C-alpha cells in the first residue's frame, strides 16, 4: 500500500503562540480509511484542516514540519491551494448545503473550476450522488432546494458534492455527529465502498465509530500523537496505556 499523505514533524500553533499539535509524524495510506481519534482538544480537527490548507482561513498556522501529498509539500507558500482543495475534499460536522437546488450544490465545485459543458455537469451530478448512495432518493427532485432534504440526506449531499469534484482524498470531520443511526450507517457504508478508489481520513465522533470503520487509526491526546497502528490492532491490543484507557472508556 502506497502512502498518499506523509506528515513529517508537523507542529501547529494558534495566533497567540499556544501549541495545537506537537511534532506529529504520520503516514496515511491510499485507498483505505484512516481514523484520527481521541478526546476533544487533541488537535485532530486542526490537523485535518491543514490537509486542504483550510487552516489559512483560521488562526492556526504551521510552525514547522511538512505535509507531503504524493511527495510534494503542500505547506509550501508556492502551492496552488485552489487545485489542492479540489484534490482534497472535506465534509464538515454539520451538513452545510448551499442555498440553491440539489443540482446547484452538486455542480458548484465544477462551476468554480470553469466547467460549463452541460453534459459534463449532468454526468458529475449523477456520479457523485450515486457514490454517496443518494441518487435513488433525489433523482426526481434535483431542482428542489437542497434545504428541503432531511439531515441525513443533506450530509450525504455534502459528501456527493465533494465527490463531484473528483478528488483523490476525502476528509471527514465528525460527519455523522448530528445524524440518526440509520443515516450514520448509510454514510459509513458509503465510505466502505469509496475507500476502494479514494483515500479517506475520518475524525469519528465516537470510539465505536472509529472501531467500526478504521483500517488504520491514530490516537491523539492533547496535541500529541500517542500511537498509530492498524485498526484491528489498536482497538484490541493497544501498545500505550493512554490509548488503552481511552479505548476502554476510562476517560474521555
Amino acid at each position, binding site marked *: 500500500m502506497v502512502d498518499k499523505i506523509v506528515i513529517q514533524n508537523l507542529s501547529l500553533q494558534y495566533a497567540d503562540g499556544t501549541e495545537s499539535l506537537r511534532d506529529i509524524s504520520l503516514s496515511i495510506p491510499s485507498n483505505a480509511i484512516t481514523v484520527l481519534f481521541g478526546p476533544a482538544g487533541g488537535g485532530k480537527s486542526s490537523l485535518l484542516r491543514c490537509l*486542504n490548507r*483550510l487552516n489559512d*482561513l483560521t488562526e492556526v498556522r504551521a510552525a514547522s514540519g511538512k505535509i507531503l501529498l504524493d511527495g510534494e509539500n503542500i505547506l509550501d507558500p508556492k502551492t496552488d491551494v*485552489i*487545485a489542492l*482543495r*479540489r484534490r482534497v*475534499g*472535506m465534509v*464538515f460536522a*454539520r451538513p*452545510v448545503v*448551499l*442555498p*440553491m437546488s440539489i443540482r446547484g450544490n452538486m455542480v*458548484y*465545485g465544477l*462551476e*468554480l*473550476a470553469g466547467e460549463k459543458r452541460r453534459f459534463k455537469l449532468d454526468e458529475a451530478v449523477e456520479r457523485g450522488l450515486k457514490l454517496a448512495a443518494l441518487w435513488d432518493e433525489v433523482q426526481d427532485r434535483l431542482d428542489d*432546494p*437542497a*434545504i428541503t432534504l432531511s439531515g441525513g440526506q443533506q450530509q450525504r449531499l*455534502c459528501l456527493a*458534492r*465533494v465527490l463531484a*469534484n473528483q478528488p483523490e482524498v476525502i476528509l471527514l470531520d465528525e460527519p455523522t455527529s448530528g445524524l440518526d443511526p440509520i443515516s450514520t450507517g448509510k454514510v459509513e457504508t458509503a465510505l466502505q465502498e469509496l475507500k476502494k478508489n479514494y483515500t479517506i481520513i475520518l475524525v469519528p465522533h465516537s470510539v465505536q465509530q472509529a472501531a467500526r470503520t478504521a483500517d488504520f487509526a491514530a490516537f491523539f491526546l492533547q496535541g500529541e500523537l500517542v500511537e498509530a497502528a492498524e485498526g484491528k490492532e489498536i482497538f484490541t491490543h493497544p501498545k500505550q496505556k493512554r490509548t488503552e484507557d481511552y479505548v476502554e472508556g476510562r476517560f474521555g
Partner: protein
Amino acid sequence: MKRRFSIDRFLAQRLGVSLITLVALLTVIPIIGVFGYIIAKGAPAISWEFLTAMPRDGMRAGGILPAIVGTFYLTLGTAVFSVPLGIAAAIYLAEYAQENWLTRLIRIAIINLAGIPSVVYGLFGLGLFVLFLKFGTSILAASLTLSIMTLPVIISAAEEALRAVPQSFRTVSISLGGTRWQTIRKIVLPQALPGIMTGVILGLERAAGETAPILFTGAAFFLPRLPGSPLDATMALPYHLFVISTQVPDMPIQIQYGTALVLIIFVLGMNLIATVIRSRARAKRQW
C-alpha cells in the same frame, strides 16, 4: 405595613404605565395627524395635469412636472455614483478587511459622514463640484454631493446584509476550490442582495427628500424647459416646496399642499418598495 407597601407599588405601576401610554399617544397621534392633514388638503390638487404639465403663471398654476422629473433625475444620479461605490466598500469591510486600526478609522469616517449636517454637504458640493471642478450648478454636481451624503447609509446597510450570510457558506465554497471573490460573487452577494437593496432604497429615499445639499449645487426654481443634460440645473420637489411656501407671494395653498403630497408619495413609495423587498426575501430565504 406590608399592605401599604404593595399598594404603593401597584399604584406606581398603574401611574407609570398610564404616563408612558400617554406619552406614546402624544407621539403617535401627531404623526397620523400630519399625514391625514396633508392628504386631505393636498389630494384635491392632484390631477393628471398637475403631475404632467409644466407650471404656468410663475408656478401659481399648471403642473409640477419639471420638479418631479428633476427629483427623479437627481435620485438616479445619486444611485449611479453611490450604489456601486457603497456596495464595494461594504464588501471590503465585510469580506476583506481585518480588525485593525485602519478598519477602525474607516468605520469612524463612515459614522462621521453620516453625521455631517446636510447644509455642510451643500457647501462642500459648492466648493468642490460647482466651483473647483467647474461643473457649475448642475444635476451632476448635485448628484455627486448627494451621493457622498448617501454613502454611509448604503455602506452600513450593505455591510450588515453581507455579514448576515452564514460564515459556513464561505467555508464550504473555499473548501471546494473557490477563491474569495468567486465565493462573494456566487454565494454571498446574491444572498445579501435583498438586504442591500432595502438599504439602497432607504438611502435614496432620503436623498430624494433633501433640500440643503442641492440648494447651491443643482437646484433652480424657475426653468422654462426640462433639463437636457447632466450639466443643466434642474427643479426638484423638495426645493420647489420650500420656495413656493416661503418666497412666492399669492401662491395658492392648494398647490403647496399638492406639491407636499406628491413629495411624500414619492418618498413613501420608495419606503413601501423597500419593505416589500425585505419581507419577500425573508420568506424565500434558504437558510
